[in-house]
């Protein structure tokens, strides 16, 4: 365990150093991350205003709160491994990681965290600025914050493990982009990004319950906004834990199979 924490520490330092070499791209990428929720926020605010001040229980200030929370939650949980894997497998850079006596997921997690450490202050500042402009209505209490922290941590882990597992598709097909596309479109609708899930048609809401997306984004947002009952919060946390365990098990199995495939056809 001590050895692994040393790997994390060094990977954090390495990633930080590498990232700071590219300050310009960091800024561009940050702008993108902030713009996306801002667009949804403006669209939904307009819709809400034009339909008499509220849509499906969301007033303008509720949308503001929802999308400012989305900005922060997405910032913490998002990954880029699905893009990266394709490149790694095609360029053969995976061989290097396979010969290290440490599972490659660890350096990816550390790399992800270090990127967040750098960008988080900026996203926080953006959230503060948006709050000043849009006056969000947060009904956050100390209790919701106490539940929000584990929910956010679980959301990060579930999203990371699910996307890392999905990224393994790169070992099996060269059409990874198509798979990524399907994944991201599904996530866009079913995680609560494009709209709060309560605004979706009921069948889609049911689908969302049984897929991992909601538990990585929508659930922690609804929680911090104070829109969930205590029972809903506890159920949500339990579902996150189930997804975490399921993703871990699936990752283990698929990782082995993928590496076997990789080493059969030529690394």
């Amino acid at each position, binding site marked *: 365990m001590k050895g692994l924490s040393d790997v994390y520490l060094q990977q954090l330092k*390495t990633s930080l150093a590498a990232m700071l070499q590219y300050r310009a791209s960091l800024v561009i990428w940050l702008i993108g991350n902030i713009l996306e929720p801002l667009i949804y926020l403006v669209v939904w605010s307009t819709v809400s205003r034009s339909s008499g001040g509220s849509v499906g229980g969301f007033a303008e200030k509720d949308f503001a709160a929802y999308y400012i929370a989305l900005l922060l939650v997405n910032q913490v949980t998002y990954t880029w491994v699905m893009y990266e894997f394709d490149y790694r497998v095609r360029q053969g850079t995976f*061989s290097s990681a396979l010969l290290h006596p440490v599972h490659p997921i660890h350096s990816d997690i550390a790399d992800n965290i270090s990127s967040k450490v750098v960008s988080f202050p900026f996203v926080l500042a953006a959230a503060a600025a948006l709050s000043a402009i849009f006056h969000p209505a947060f009904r956050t209490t100390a209790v919701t914050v106490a539940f929000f922290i584990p929910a956010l941590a679980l959301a990060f882990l579930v999203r990371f493990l699910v996307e890392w597992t999905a990224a393994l598709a790169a070992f099996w097909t060269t059409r990874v982009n198509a798979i990524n596309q399907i994944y991201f479109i599904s996530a866009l609708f079913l995680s609560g990004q494009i709209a709060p899930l309560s605004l979706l048609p009921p069948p889609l809401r049911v689908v969302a319950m049984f897929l991992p997306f909601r538990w990585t984004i929508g659930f922690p947002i609804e929680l911090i906004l104070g829109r969930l009952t205590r029972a809903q919060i506890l159920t949500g946390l339990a579902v996150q834990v189930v997804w975490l365990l399921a993703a871990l098990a699936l990752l283990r199995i698929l990782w082995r199979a993928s590496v076997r495939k990789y080493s059969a056809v030529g690394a």
Partner: protein
Amino acid sequence: METGPTIRVRDLKKIFVVSRREAGIREALASLVHRRMEEIPAVDGISFDLAAGEIVGFLGPNGAGKTTTLKMLSGLLYPTSGELSVLSHVPWKREKSFLRQITLVMGQRNQLVWDIPAADSFELNRAIYHIPSADYRQILEELTGLLELGPLLSKPVRNLSLGERMKCEIAVALLHRPSVVFLDEPTIGLDVTMQRRIRSFITEYNRRYGATVLLTSHYMADVEALCKRVIVIHHGKLLFDGELAALVHRFTAHKTIAVQLRDCDADLSVYGEVISCEDGRATLRVPKSETARVTERLLVDLPVIDLTVEDPPIEEVIERVFAQEAV
């Protein structure tokens, strides 16, 4: 305690199955329906042993199966059949205890992070391989000395020259002091001075740590300087395994006689095949069995100033090995 050989390979095979398709739109459409699969034996039943501490040259033309073999030995590729053990481990299982004892250096396997100084990548590998701090400082100092890394370590890797980068790649691959080292073309693209530095480094590493080294190279100078023993493969099959000197002996039916005369007026073709003659400096190729007789005749018949008898350059020998194929 190790009992058997450090590396043991028996009847090792790797067959790749690839889809084959002729050029053209008709073929492209046909391949949608029926894909013709073809088996390519990259490594076709080779066997050899390496004892601890040996440096062995692994030779063969492009596509002979060298890299495929190195990948199987290091655990990146799963063999189709045959037996394989390295340090009593089955490589493809990639057990941590195995990975900590080996290294593979190859052109496309870059361990250094491009945008940051090599020293940072070294630190990362220290953590990955659990190298105790004291050991790390010592080996880093040694590697820095042997490879003259000093000023390079603090520069971003992307600002290093090819040779400088290769030195750093070799160093980062050896930080954990592996006892088995696989080197795939460690000197490719480097200038002669750098090649020599890397060569002497490999010798020194092998001497200090008793590491077993298997290396491929297209530069025969590497092989001559480093390897007493060579293994030659071609089309995935083993052609030769033995001392370099024996390879030369076996595959050269000729020797080269260089004579310094006053001019090139004499007809030298009666002595052997004249390869060149310029300003009285002639090079003759003669059958090995004739060497002594021809030398004697040259000395008697002509006003010879100087005469040397040499084996043909190793490149020529290797070329001949691949041309003959049958041993």
